[in-house]
C-alpha cells in the first residue's frame, strides 16, 4: 500500500513537471508577447528598442532555456507579476482560490446531499416510475449546456422575477444573507449540472451491491427493505461513489470556469479565463499549473479513498 502510494505520488509529480513545460510552451504560442504589449503602449518605441528589451528579458533565448529560467525563479518563490491586476501573481491567486472554494464547496455539498438519496431511491425500485423519473432528470443534468443553464437562470430569476442579482459578488462588509443572494444562482447552476452524474453513479453502484449475497442474507433474516437498502446497501455502495466524488472535486476547480465567468464570480476559473484572454502570461501560467496540480491531487485522493475504504482491494500487485 505504501509503495503503491509512493509510486502514484511520484507519477503525479512527473505529470505535473511535464505539464509545466507543456503549459509554458503553449503560453508562448499565445498571440503577442510582453514586448508587443509594451510596443502597443508606447508608439515611439523602435524595432531596435524592442530587440534590446527582448534580450534584456531573455525572450530571445531558446524555449528550453526560457523555461529553465522561469522554473528556477518560480521554485525560489518568484512567480512574477500579474499584468492584468498589477499585483504579484500569488496575491491575485489567493483571494480567487478562497472565492472558488466557497462557491464550489457549497455546490458540491448540495449536489451530494441531493444526488445520493436520489440514486439510492432509483436503485431500490428499479424500473419503477420513480426510477424512470430520476433517470430522466439525471440525463437532463448531464446533457444541459452549463452556460445555457446559467443564462436561463439569469433570465428567470434576475430578468423576469428580479429576485436575485445577475452576477458579481457581494460588496465587502455585506451580511451573510447578501452573500448568499449573490451565490445562489452560480451554486444552483453547478449543483444541477453535477446532480445528474452523481445520482447515476450512486444508482449503478447501489444496483451492484443489492445483488450481493450479504444483501440476500439480510433479507432472509427479515430485515425490512428500508433497512436493507439504507443500512446494509448504502455503506458499501458509497465506496466507488466516494472515489468518483474525490476525482470530481479536483475537476470542479477548473470546471467552474464557465459558471464563474458568466456570473462574474471572481474565482479560479474566471481568473484563468481572464488571464488567458487578457495575455496575462505570468498569471495564466501559474493559475493553469495550480489547476493541474489540484486535479492531479484529486486523482491521487480518489485512489487513496478507494484503497482505504475497501479492505478487499490490494493495489500494486505486491501481495505474493
Amino acid at each position: 500500500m505504501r509503495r503503491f502510494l509512493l509510486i502514484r505520488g511520484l507519477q503525479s509529480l512527473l505529470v505535473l513537471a511535464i505539464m509545466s513545460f507543456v503549459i509554458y510552451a503553449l503560453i508562448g504560442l499565445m498571440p503577442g508577447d510582453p514586448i508587443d504589449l509594451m510596443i502597443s503602449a508606447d508608439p515611439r518605441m523602435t524595432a531596435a528598442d524592442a530587440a534590446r528589451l527582448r534580450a534584456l528579458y531573455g525572450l530571445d533565448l531558446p524555449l528550453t532555456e526560457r523555461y529553465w529560467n522561469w522554473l528556477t525563479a518560480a521554485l525560489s518563490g518568484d512567480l512574477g507579476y500579474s499584468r492584468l491586476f498589477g499585483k504579484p501573481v500569488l496575491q491575485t491567486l489567493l483571494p480567487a482560490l478562497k472565492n472558488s472554494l466557497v462557491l464550489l464547496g457549497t455546490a458540491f455539498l448540495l449536489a451530494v446531499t441531493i444526488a445520493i438519496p436520489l440514486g439510492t431511491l432509483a436503485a431500490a425500485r428499479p424500473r419503477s416510475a420513480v426510477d424512470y423519473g430520476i433517470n430522466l432528470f439525471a440525463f437532463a443534468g448531464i446533457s444541459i449546456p452549463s452556460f445555457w443553464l446559467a443564462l436561463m437562470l439569469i433570465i428567470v430569476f434576475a430578468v423576469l422575477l428580479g429576485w436575485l442579482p445577475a452576477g458579481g459578488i457581494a460588496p465587502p462588509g455585506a451580511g451573510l444573507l447578501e452573500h448568499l443572494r449573490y451565490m445562489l444562482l452560480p451554486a444552483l447552476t453547478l449543483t444541477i449540472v453535477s446532480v445528474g452524474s452523481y445520482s447515476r453513479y450512486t444508482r449503478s453502484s447501489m444496483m451492484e451491491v443489492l445483488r450481493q449475497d450479504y444483501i440476500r442474507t439480510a433479507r432472509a433474516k427479515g430485515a425490512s427493505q428500508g433497512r436493507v437498502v439504507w443500512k446494509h446497501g448504502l455503506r458499501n455502495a458509497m465506496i466507488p461513489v466516494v472515489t468518483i466524488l474525490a476525482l470530481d472535486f479536483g475537476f470542479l476547480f477548473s470546471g467552474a470556469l464557465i459558471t464563474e465567468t458568466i456570473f462574474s464570480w471572481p474565482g479560479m476559473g474566471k481568473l484563468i479565463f481572464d488571464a488567458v484572454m487578457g495575455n496575462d502570461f505570468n498569471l495564466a501560467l501559474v493559475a493553469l499549473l495550480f489547476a493541474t496540480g489540484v486535479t492531479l491531487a484529486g486523482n491521487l485522493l480518489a485512489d487513496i479513498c478507494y484503497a482505504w475504504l475497501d479492505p478487499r482491494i490490494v493495489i500494486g500487485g505486491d501481495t505474493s
Partner: protein
Amino acid sequence: MNSNSPFVLAMRRFRRHKLAMASGVLLLAMIGTVVCAPLFEMLLGVDANQVDLFNQKAPPSAEHPLGTDELGRDVLLRSMYGGRVSLFTGLVAALAAGTIGTIIGLLAGYFGGRLDAILMRTTDSVIALPLLPLLIVLAAIDLSKLGLPRDLIESSMISFYRIIIIVALVGWTTVARLVRGATLSLKEREFVMAAEGVGASHFHIMFRHIFPNLISPIIVAVTLSVGNVILLESVLSFLGLGIQPPVPSWGNMLTNAQELVWDAPMLAVYPGLLIFITVIAVNFLGDGLQDAFDPKAES
C-alpha cells in the same frame, strides 16, 4: 437462420427501448432539417446571412418565424445552418477521437508489456488533466507562431479544423481504455491463436480478427461522446474560441446572449434549447444502444 444473428437480436432489444427509438427518430429528423436548410431558405425567400439593421431583434412574423437577431438576421435559418456546423463537428470530432482511441487501445492491449504501460500511463495522465482550461489555451494559441501556411490560417475552415483537432487530442481516452480491456481478453481466444498459427501478421490479427469484435462497444462509446463533443464545441464557440462568426454554430449564436437577456431573452433560449435537445437525444440513443448490445448489463 440469419434472422437470429447477434445484430438482429440487438436491434430487436433496441426497438423495445422506446426513449432511445424516439431519440433516434428525432435526431434523424433534425439532421434532415439542417441538411435541407438551403431549401427552407428558398421557401422563406430570406438570406440566412443577410444583415438588416432596420429590423433588429424583431418579434416572430410570417417572414421570420422565430424573429431576427441583434443584427437583423433570421433566427430560424441561422439555427438550421448553425445546426449543420454543430452536428457535423460533433460527429466528425467524435469519430476522429474514436479512431485514435481504437488504435491506441488495440496497440496497448495486443502488444502488452512496456508499450502497454507507456500508453496506459499516458491515458491516465490525460484523464487527470483539467481539460477545460487547457482547451481554452489550445483554442487561443496563435497558429502563425506554429509556422502554419498563411492561406490555411486565414481560410474560413480553420476554426472548424481546430475544434476537431482539439477534441481528438483529448477525447480519445475513454475509447482507448475500453478497447484495450476488450483486446486483452480477445487476444487469448482460440480464433486469435488459430490466426497466429497460420502465420497471420500482427496487423492482420488486430484489424481483421480483433477489431470486428470491438465494433459494438466502440459504436456505443462514440455515440455517447458525440453529445460531449457538441457540448464542448458549444462552450468554446460561446466563449468566442470555437467556430468563428459569421459562420453560425449553436454555441456562437449565444456569444452575445448575455447582453441580450435583458431585451430579447428568446434569442438566448433557442440555440441552447437545440443543443440541450440534441445532446439529451444522443445520450438516450447511446444508452439504448448500450443496453441492446450488452444484454447482461442491467441498466
